């Protein structure tokens, strides 16, 4: 029995020691987020909160911009690293971030000039060699190699000027440099320190401080930042809280200052509260109900049926069901905030016309199968669509699956009839159409193979006259939205962020890489 006692004692010691050792020391706890949130930073008359903590839903996994396309990583990297060009969230235009100016000598020949005196976190000054180094490194990475494959030749003119010759002409090439995975890195940092340290060196107003896997990543302000004003906040922390309700509780508790993607059920509470605010922005994601045009055995291949469905859908009702009203109804396939968007009328809700068309097609009693992912808004969109179609005597069976499974099904299963999906074009007008609607597009799940549409997309992408280009994109929108109808555009969902009252500088990006460079809170 002495042995029993000994073993029991040893087990207890192991358990207690494990719990306490893990919790007591180590670098994980030395700079715990939230521990310094009181107190303030004086800047003239105004005092600022020292630390701003933002709760994000997905995990941050890497500080290396070239290794990821995940928004949860890019949100943090946007604070520490900069791009050659970027979207100005005030004007929604592609503007220079690290470049002063650019010139399209020809669609396949571009000239760029860097801003002068931009300082990296390691103290070195940005020059063309850093851009060249970044591009060469990016060429060997799976995430970025496709971008780099567009470039035929990189020509250094001097320390601040460079030219790029492309394999194929691209009148929107400046948008390529707005890809977050092409953030510019310091060549000298890679020569003087290990790669895992060098990737942390950027030109942004925040410097990387600490990363605890699946817990938090913290940044400290870059006191010598030359590209932006030095932030008023000393420390910026991103805490990873996967559960929406847990994020909301953390905000209510004061453990965090802002939360990304609050639950739709909390929108009203945040918006009407005296202590919190709900920040909104129309997202660029176009949510739609789509048809598989290649399925010739199904009625969905008949454009008249697709038109009837477009007339049959009450988009306002669907927006209420899926987003509690927090979305903007779409009239065009193209996303509203993009260049060359034409405010076309589209196909409005007309149940009588829809019924007449369905009757003409003999669609009463028809059964249609629709697939979508298990994301909550898609589930609600699909269910609402099912209910709306039932009014016309059409039975819609719905199948839900994981996003990865949905994509594979859309890629491989030719018997798919309808699906609910969204498309978030990151950059220019061409991206809106090329990949999801051009016959060579990698995400053309509607299997639209229309030579006229292909030719129009290609011609619009190559057109240098903006007026003619605008005309082409308008024609594309009208033909796709009202004649061919591979998708019925439903809405662009509103992006939301909950924050404590008084926190400013939280900018929602329609493309989901939200910007927190100037996050701050005045406390006096």
């Amino acid at each position: 029995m002495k042995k029993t006692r000994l073993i029991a004692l040893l087990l207890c010691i192991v358990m207690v020691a494990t719990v306490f050792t893990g919790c007591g020391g180590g670098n994980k706890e030395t700079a715990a987020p939230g521990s310094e949130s009181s107190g303030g930073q004086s800047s003239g008359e105004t005092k600022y909160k020292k630390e701003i903590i933002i709760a994000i839903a997905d995990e941050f996994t890497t500080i290396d911009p070239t290794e990821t396309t995940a928004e949860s990583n890019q949100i943090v990297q946007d604070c520490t690293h900069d791009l050659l060009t970027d979207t100005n969230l005030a004007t929604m235009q592609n503007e220079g971030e690290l470049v002063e100016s650019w010139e399209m000598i020809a669609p396949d020949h571009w000239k760029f000039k860097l801003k002068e005196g931009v300082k990296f976190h390691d103290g070195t000054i940005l020059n063309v060699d850093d851009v060249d180094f970044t591009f060469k490194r990016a060429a060997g990475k799976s995430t970025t190699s496709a971008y780099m494959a567009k470039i035929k030749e990189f020509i250094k003119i001097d320390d601040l000027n460079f030219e790029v010759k492309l394999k194929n002409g691209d009148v929107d090439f400046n948008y390529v440099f707005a890809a977050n995975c092409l953030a510019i890195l310091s060549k000298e940092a890679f020569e003087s320190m290990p790669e895992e340290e060098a990737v942390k060196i950027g030109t942004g107003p925040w410097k990387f401080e600490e990363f605890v896997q699946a817990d938090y990543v913290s940044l400290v302000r870059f006191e010598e930042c030359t590209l932006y004003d030095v932030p008023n906040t000393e420390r910026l922390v991103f805490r990873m809280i996967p559960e929406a309700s847990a994020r909301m509780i953390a905000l209510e508790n004061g453990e965090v200052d802002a939360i990304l993607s609050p639950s739709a059920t909390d929108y009203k509470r945040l918006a009407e509260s005296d202590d919190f605010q709900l920040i909104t922005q129309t997202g660029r994601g176009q949510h739609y109900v789509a048809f598989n045009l290649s399925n010739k055995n199904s009625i969905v291949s008949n454009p008249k049926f697709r038109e009837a469905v477009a007339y049959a859908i009450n988009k306002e009702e669907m927006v209420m069901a899926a987003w509690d009203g927090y979305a903007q109804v779409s009239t065009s396939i193209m996303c509203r905030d993009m260049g060359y968007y034409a405010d076309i009328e589209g196909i409005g809700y007309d149940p009588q016309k829809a019924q007449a068309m369905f009757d003409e097609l003999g669609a009463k009693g028809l059964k249609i199968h629709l697939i979508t992912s298990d994301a909550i808004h898609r589930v609600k969109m699909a269910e609402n669509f099912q209910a709306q179609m039932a009014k016309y005597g059409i039975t819609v069976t719905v199948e839900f699956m994981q996003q990865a499974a949905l994509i594979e099904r859309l890629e491989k299963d030719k018997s798919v009839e309808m699906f609910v999906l969204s498309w978030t074009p990151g950059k220019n007008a061409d991206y809106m159409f090329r990949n999801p609607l051009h016959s060579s597009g990698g995400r053309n799940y509607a299997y639209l193979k229309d030579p006229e549409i292909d030719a129009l997309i290609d011609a619009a992408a190559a057109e240098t006259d903006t007026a003619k280009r605008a005309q082409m994109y308008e024609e594309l929108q009208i033909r796709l939205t009202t004649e061919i109808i591979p998708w019925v555009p439903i809405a662009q969902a509103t992006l939301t962020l909950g924050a404590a009252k008084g926190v400013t500088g939280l900018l929602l990006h329609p493309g989901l890489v939200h910007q927190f460079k100037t996050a701050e809170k005045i406390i006096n």
Partner: protein
Amino acid sequence: MFRYIFQRFLMMIPVILAVSFVVYYLMDLAPGDIVSMMAPQDATEAEIEMMREEMGLSGTLPERYLRYMFNLLKGDLGESLSMKRPVIEIFFERFPATLKLAFGSILVALLISVPLGVAAATHHRSWLDGTSMVTAMLGLSMPSFWLGLLLIIVFSLKLGILPSGGSSGFASIILPAITLGAGQAGNLTRITRSSMLEVIRQDYLRTARAKGVSEKAVIYKHALKNALIPIITIFGSTLGNALGGAVAIETVFSWPGVGRLTVTAINTRDMTLATGCIIMFTIFLTFTLLLVDIAYAYVDPRIKAQYSK
């Protein structure tokens, strides 16, 4: 004894082989692939194919599995497809947190279940016995996800005395350990009670009482010691449950453990990371069960005698 340990080590090999094959095969069978999810939305078909090639995902399933196993034999679990870092490195960064939570929850479970189980057994068929069993059933049947949120609302939001999540400081482990420990406590209470009921009917306890030993000493010095032997036996499986059951708790409390990592890896179809995590779990659990068996042999002379034969 050494022969037995050696045999157990050998038995681990087919277990790991079987687990690796099943996990690898199932992951391959699951619809969807990581390349489509990771590729930029504007990537063309050719670019997606190029990514697949660069990530080493080309080739047939047997080819890829053999390649994977060959590297595994060299102790290389591969590189995470989504994080682009060695799986072993990622696993060991996250494993201490899971282990900490597992031990914390077992500690909570023991602190609840032993006194409750003993009280139930010594007051057999009394109101105390009934209450203990109802409490145990409550612990067993309450969904941990729901209990976790409830505890957060009470202790974080209403009382403001404990953090709602994260892993910074001792205070942050209290709520997740209680949530995970509650379920285990239910099970352990029932085992302690039945084990104690069996022991307190033994002759040697009657003899101890006859010799004038106080009732407290009879129960806590003589009976409990023997009743604890089965608890040691189930320690391994409880630890396994604690590790496996930690997924929901890690999500609710934003706890940076391996459970959350594995689920994320499965959802994103990060095959190497998911397979690596599950293989590491298997190795850890097999070792734990072996240690428990050895410990059991030490505390129970009958088992030790069996090994000696």
